[in-house]
């Protein structure tokens, strides 16, 4: 089980996803935008193992946050799942360049998310 950070400006999304992740034993940290996410990630003192991030957010959008995470040697290995309503090819290419490893379009299905998380965590643990 891992410490997971959810970065989304919607409390509704954070609550739903937090509920699903906690139910299978993960510990969840929350941030309401990219800037709050970066502050929480500083030095990775919370030992975050995976990040869920929205694209459209106030203050700092998700892709900008991912670019900052990708630039930081202490954080760049943390896998990032983009969780967004947008499914645009250009945006996905930008995401990939910024270190995003998975793209999930909302509304998500619980089983698919949890399987994806398990798969990536198992991979990064080895």
């Amino acid at each position, binding site marked *: 089980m891992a410490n997971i950070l959810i970065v989304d*400006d919607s409390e*509704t999304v954070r609550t739903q996803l937090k509920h699903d992740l906690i139910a299978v034993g993960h510990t969840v940290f929350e941030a309401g935008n990219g800037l709050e996410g970066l502050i929480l990630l500083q030095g990775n003192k919370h030992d975050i193992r995976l990040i869920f991030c929205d694209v459209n*957010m106030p203050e700092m959008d998700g892709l900008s946050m991912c670019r900052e995470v990708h630039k930081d040697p202490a954080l760049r290995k943390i896998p990032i799942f983009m969780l967004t*309503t947008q499914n*645009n090819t250009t945006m996905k290419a930008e995401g990939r360049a910024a270190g995003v*490893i*998975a*793209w999930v379009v909302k509304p998500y*299905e619980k089983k698919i998310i949890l399987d994806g998380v398990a798969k990536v965590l198992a991979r990064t643990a080895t």
Partner: protein
Amino acid sequence: MDNTRTNEDIARDAAAIRDKVAEFVRHSAFLRLKNQADCPDVDVRTLADDFVPGRILANNMAFILISGDSVRITFKVHFNLATAKNLAFRVFGGESAEDIPVRQAFDYVKEYCNLVAGNVVSLFENVGVDLGISLPLCTRGFYEVFSDYAESDYPVVTYSKFWRLQANENVIFCSARFELLNRKSLTNLIGFEIPEETIGDSEIEFLWDSA
């Protein structure tokens, strides 16, 4: 240029584009309420003929802008606080729907706008039209009186649609203001059938090939 097209053909195509754009939004609003409220029987009704655009439909209003080079859509959800609390209760839980804080109730409706907009953008992608989404906002329903619902056919086609959605005992009103900025780039909409979304369509796309 096709010189064989009559004025009737052009008018028919223009009407088909207008209808399809409106159908995209109405369909997305229906589908996302069905998912989010977990209600298989969402009832959709067009507002009565005597409805006057600009009339205040509820105490609160959430809205989002969907826009690109060819089309601009303002989608609004008009709702009362008790309805939003009832809907949000499914996500936030607690003792009762009445105990849901206003902040969470509003957030739920804003996220609904976001989901509707995301679905609209996906539908437009099927016909080669790229659109972006704004952040959703929530305000007083009273501000509807300042909305401009004037219709026009040239140079920008502008029109509006209004409808009512009911999921169980929860009623919300939706409105959408459409501005067709470049009708030529929307011709692929003619004859396009909205694909049926089935449970299990959602998936994770791994961008890291080796993941």
